[in-house]
């Protein structure tokens, strides 16, 4: 692909704007930097500054913590399955809403967006009372269901945006040239929405991975990684271990988010925001 010509309107920003942007970036990211710093401190109970000394021992301690690994594993599995559910349901919902006209279509497209518009605490309470009403025991699957509510929206939004810009005659063209429904889906629709699915899926994964509120209401005895970190903060011992974990979470989550950002930049249409 040839590179796009530079926008002639894009001039250099005047220095006060550049300075403002720089300050905003510092303000947003400074706390993250602090967390990184204290992953290396020798002081295990308080946040003293300057650091009394630097050490790598917390990395070793974190490595040996069974409960940490259990929480991490749970979070990855929950996020993975919630994302898969979201990819399937979100795509189907997007196809139904953009491809067909049926009674209540507007209402359905609005209700699909509700889980994101509503505060997480409302979703959490609603799910908890629903589970209680039907006597469903809290488990791994109740967490997955809770997370899927907002993950579906993310995928739905991305795919709907793609479909909106899609001329449906490409589907007709494919059928015209001899492809049946399944082959048209495989060869035309799926490749066409692939980047939207990738961006939506990665974003859904990232959101599920750090979700706290809905999880608190839908989890039983198990704790996902964010809940584990939260519980660690109330204990004074081994405090820097949580900082080590945070450091790794940030580094690992940066990959899908950057990728999703790159994809949506290239396509110029997928929504990264919720």
């Amino acid at each position, binding site marked *: *692909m040839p590179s796009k010509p530079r926008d002639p309107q894009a001039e250099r920003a005047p220095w006060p704007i550049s300075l403002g942007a720089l300050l905003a970036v510092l303000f947003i990211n400074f706390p993250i930097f602090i967390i990184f710093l204290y992953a290396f401190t020798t002081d295990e109970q308080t946040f003293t500054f300057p650091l009394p000394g630097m050490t790598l021992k917390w990395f070793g301690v974190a490595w040996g913590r069974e409960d940490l690994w259990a929480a991490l594993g749970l979070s990855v599995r929950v996020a993975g399955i919630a994302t898969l559910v979201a990819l399937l349901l979100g795509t189907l919902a997007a196809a139904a809403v953009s491809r067909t006209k049926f009674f209540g279509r507007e209402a359905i497209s609005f209700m699909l967006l509700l889980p994101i518009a509503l505060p997480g605490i409302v979703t959490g309470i609603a799910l908890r009372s629903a589970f209680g009403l039907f006597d469903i025991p809290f488990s791994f699957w109740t967490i997955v269901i809770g997370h899927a509510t907002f993950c579906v929206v993310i995928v739905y939004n991305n795919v709907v945006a793609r479909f909106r810009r899609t*001329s449906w*005659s*490409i589907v*007709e*063209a*494919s*059928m*015209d*040239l*001899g*492809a*049946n429904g399944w*082959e048209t889906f495989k*060869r*035309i629709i799926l*490749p*066409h929405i*692939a980047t939207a699915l990738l961006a939506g899926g990665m974003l859904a994964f990232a959101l599920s991975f750090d979700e706290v509120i809905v999880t608190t209401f839908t989890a039983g005895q198990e704790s996902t990684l964010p809940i584990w970190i939260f519980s660690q903060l109330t204990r004074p011992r081994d405090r820097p271990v949580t900082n080590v974990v945070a450091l790794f979470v940030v580094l690992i989550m940066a990959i899908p988010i950057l990728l999703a950002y790159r994809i949506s930049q290239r396509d110029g249409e997928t929504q990264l925001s919720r």
Partner: protein
Amino acid sequence: MSNQNPTPAIRFENVHRHFGEVKAVDGVNLDVLDGEFFTFLGPSGSGKTTCLRMVAGFDRPTSGRIFLHGDDVSELPPYERDVNTVFQDYALFPHMTVLDNVAYGLTVRKAAREQRTRRAEEMLDLVRLPGLGKRKPSQLSGGQRQRVALARALILRPRVLLLDEPLGALDLKLRQEMQVELKALQEQVGITFIYVTHDQEEALTMSDRLAVFSHGRIEQVGSPAEIYESPATEFVAGFVGISNLVRGDVARGILGTDTTFSVRPEKIHILEPDAAVQGGMDSVRGRIEEVIYLGMYTRFEVALEGGGKLTVAQQNLETSSMDVHTARGREVRLVWEKSHSRKLGGQA
């Protein structure tokens, strides 16, 4: 056309297509012969595109049947019909290269890779786009996309090619070029073309025969000359060419009977008001109201004695724009051969 093939390429048998209360197609009967360049001409909403889509299989008749080379295809899905379509918006697959787009029909049929590539390259040569196979559709101009869509639709060697206003998005110059090229291509590949357009000039230029659509019905079927010279209804007379209708008392004054008729603007001569009229001619007195100089010819709007208006076109053989403008306001007599007064049936 002296094509006496007994089985028409396409037959519409009392085809209706209703969308709720709207009768998009309202009883169409039509035979399209094998190897014809056949045009569906009509304004938007006249049912011509719906008819095309029912041949392709994207739409099903509410009632009636459609035959392709004698086989009833009314209920067949698009992928089981031996027709291919060139879409108005081209409908190229944006994630594929031009070559993969053109080869798509063969890919779906699981043809070997070398054969696909070779055939696709042949098709690109045919539409005069050699060497562009590696590009993506987004890197092509409108005219090039048009040709790719054409190559893609022709690669399966369909017996009928459907074209849905394929030149609509192109600028005038390119459109005229493509008209000539399409016509030549059709003669080269020798398959039936069904061409949908709302542009009467395009229809007259390219077609062997055409059907004029209005309100879901066919008003007239015939060769371009028949349609132009002998319009069967007021609608056809008005939609194809300049509407030159005379009705009521004025018509009685000219013809002697109270019949609505049309006369084409270039058939009319302008004479002095008192000029003698020979036998075999129809004539009427009037006053030139408007003169529109168009370079090659001049258009006169003449208000007729007793009401009504006729448009007259005269070639600028020896006149210039200075001469013709002095004609405004002049009393004249319009004269044309009786055979050019086309009496019309049917209400538009």
